[in-house]
């Protein structure tokens, strides 16, 4: 919904919150239900009101638990019946510098200041550990905003007695904990308050009158920032950025002005702004965001513009270059199809409002940020939180290489008449075996972002996955695929739990970047083999339809399972006897954990 996209009008959202909520809830389509416990050190009502709006807009329907006013610590340490039975999917601790219990005084020695810091910090650490043990779910914790006054003036920031120094040091301790603990995330209150303007943010009348830790007008901005973390954790990040060229990546029109006439580089202020934007995009690409071009241009002009000697981005930085005269909405749909991602995983950036409107109207789900003037490009993309990094795996860094290799494979495929010959020519090698600790993060990440090749769409938190990995009641497989064009990393996860001599399948997912490579058959072969070894006679598979997973509605059927049940909603149950099963993969060489490093 446009009203809820960055840069939004907070004033409007505050005024229209009720009717916005009504229209979001009336929208059709599947929503992910999530239970969020908000443990507050200040009033949380409005935080939750706007958080709900931003999450609904991302297809997440939250149910909230809110602590009684100021009871965050007591609630975490000694939860009452209501919180215990709430079973949160996520705990958010909404504290601010108003909740710091003891600051150093002007007579404190450095040692005393250090002790106060320890005391304050350990109160929090204790709480985080308790929450992690009790609920096994992700925790989001605010860091602290800077104090709104400075008793010692500028000295406050480095003197051990200064409050500014104390808050900054406490934040550092929080960050150290975040670096060492998976499933623990910092909501950067300090950044958001600075960006908003600390003076207005910390207007003390809001604390003194209403016990809000910030001014009411700033709450939408706060909740938006928080929503970015939550949507990322629940698999709603974008994957690709489709960029227009003329007046988006450079100033001017390359077809009219010629390569020498476009503005990019160090010559003018405008040229420098485009240069800075291209540099930002290059960094995004290095982070694993897929870049593509979607431009109305002759292909050769587009390439010439991208080869401008003063530019930062090169043609090879883009996985797909659609420079033609086709309508942009069609190009976006094709780009999604070629990348094997859904259109709603794409961000479309174009300076032309007419193009933005066409894409917005024709391709539902595509994010279309406001690109009104080059000096706003970075901030609008950045603050929108499309690519919020919560879990960072080595695979993210390699993603662009993988998609590039896919493009090469497609080129090779065209030269083979027989598909099996083509698959054999790829020289594929897979490792398929029980989970290894080093891969748990990636495995968990896959369960949270795979939507299409996913029969149950079951999501796992880090803690849940650790529990599955540690239990003898499960048969688990991860699959990693390498071929002559590159390493695809971990692309498939299969989990089943034992029920006597039956293995009930909880999860079967695969990354769409390895579709039609027979990887799923290789996984099945290993699954049957392991099942037999553990006395399993029947494997029972479940398919639960969603808006996105139609491609696997017949997966178990294709595997040779028999359909034993079918519900009205399209859910199906399938069974396969492990006896007499014959291996189906003939194109991938498979090995196990013992053969790697």
């Amino acid at each position, binding site marked *: 919904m446009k009203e809820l996209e960055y840069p939004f009008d907070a*004033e409007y959202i*505050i*005024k*229209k*919150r*009720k*009717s916005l909520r*009504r229209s979001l809830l009336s929208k059709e389509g599947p929503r992910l239900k999530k239970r969020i416990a908000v443990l507050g050190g200040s*009033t949380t*009502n*409005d935080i939750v009101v706007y958080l709900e709006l931003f999450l609904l807009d991302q297809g997440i329907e939250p149910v909230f638990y809110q602590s009684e006013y100021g009871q965050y610590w007591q609630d975490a340490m000694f939860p009452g019946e209501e919180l215990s039975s709430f079973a949160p999917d996520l705990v958010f601790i909404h504290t601010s510098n108003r909740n710091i219990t003891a600051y150093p005084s002007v007579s404190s020695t450095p040692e005393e200041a250090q002790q106060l810091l320890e005391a304050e910090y350990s109160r929090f650490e204790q709480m985080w550990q308790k929450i992690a043990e009790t609920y096994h779910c992700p925790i989001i914790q605010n860091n602290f905003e800077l104090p709104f006054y400075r008793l010692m003036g500028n000295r406050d920031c480095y003197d051990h007695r200064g409050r500014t120094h104390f808050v900054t040091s406490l934040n550092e301790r929080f960050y150290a904990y975040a670096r060492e603990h998976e499933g623990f995330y910092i909501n950067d209150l300090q950044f958001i308050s600075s960006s908003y303007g600390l003076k207005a943010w910390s207007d003390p*009348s809001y604390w*003194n*009158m*209403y016990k*809000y830790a910030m001014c*009411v*007008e700033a709450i939408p901005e706060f909740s938006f920032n928080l929503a970015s973390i939550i949507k990322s954790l629940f698999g709603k990040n974008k994957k690709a950025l489709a960029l227009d060229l003329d007046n988006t990546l450079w100033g001017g029109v390359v077809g009219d002005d010629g390569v020498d006439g476009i503005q990019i580089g160090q010559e003018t202020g405008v040229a420098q702004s485009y240069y800075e934007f291209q540099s930002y995009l290059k960094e995004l690409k290095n982070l694993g965001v897929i870049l593509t071009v979607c431009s109305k241009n002759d292909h050769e002009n587009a390439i010439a513009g991208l080869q401008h000697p003063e530019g930062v981005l090169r043609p090879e930085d883009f996985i797909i270059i659609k420079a033609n005269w086709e309508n942009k909405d069609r190009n976006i749909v094709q780009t999604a199809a070629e990348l094997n991602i859904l259109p709603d995983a794409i961000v479309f950036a174009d300076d032309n409002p007419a193009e933005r409107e066409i894409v917005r109207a024709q391709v539902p789900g595509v994010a279309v940020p406001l690109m009104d003037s080059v000096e706003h490009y970075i901030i609008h993309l950045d603050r929108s939180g499309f690519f919020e990094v919560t879990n960072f795996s080595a695979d993210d860094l390699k993603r662009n290489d993988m998609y590039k290799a896919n493009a090469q494979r497609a080129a090779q495929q065209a030269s083979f008449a027989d598909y099996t010959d083509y698959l054999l020519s790829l020289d594929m090698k897979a490792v398929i075996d029980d989970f290894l600790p080093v891969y748990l993060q990636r495995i968990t990440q896959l369960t949270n972002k795979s939507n299409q090749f996913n029969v149950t769409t079951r999501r796992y938190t880090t803690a849940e996955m650790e529990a599955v990995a540690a239990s003898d009641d499960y048969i688990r497989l991860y699959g990693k695929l390498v071929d002559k064009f590159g390493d695809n990393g971990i692309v498939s996860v299969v989990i089943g739990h034992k029920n006597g001599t039956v293995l009930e399948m909880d999860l079967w997912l695969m990354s769409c970047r390895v579709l039609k490579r027979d990887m799923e058959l290789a996984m099945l072969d290993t699954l049957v083999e392991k099942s037999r070894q553990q006395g399993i006679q029947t494997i029972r598979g479940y398919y639960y339809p969603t808006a996105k997973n139609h491609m696997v509605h017949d997966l178990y059927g294709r595997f040779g399972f028999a359909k034993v049940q079918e519900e009205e909603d399209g859910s199906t149950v399938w069974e396969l006897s492990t006896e007499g099963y014959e291996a189906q993969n003939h194109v991938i060489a498979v090995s196990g954990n013992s053969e790697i490093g």
Partner: protein
Amino acid sequence: MDMKTIYAALNEVFRDVFDDDSIVVGPKTTANDIEDWDSLEHITLISAVEKRFKMKFKMGEISSMKNVGEMAQIIASRVK
């Protein structure tokens, strides 16, 4: 700004904040007359009114206003 204009604008803000197009506010209207007008919604209301008239209430005024009439008086005294 005359009182008539102030009440018309206030009425609009009330309808938006409480999402109820049947609301008609007058000088004697209080929180008891509007179902959703509790202490939490009051905060939103004050913020929306301040933005609409581009003015700020003082802390003491927010807690002492007894009805919409007093609110309108403060607005009239501060907005030209």
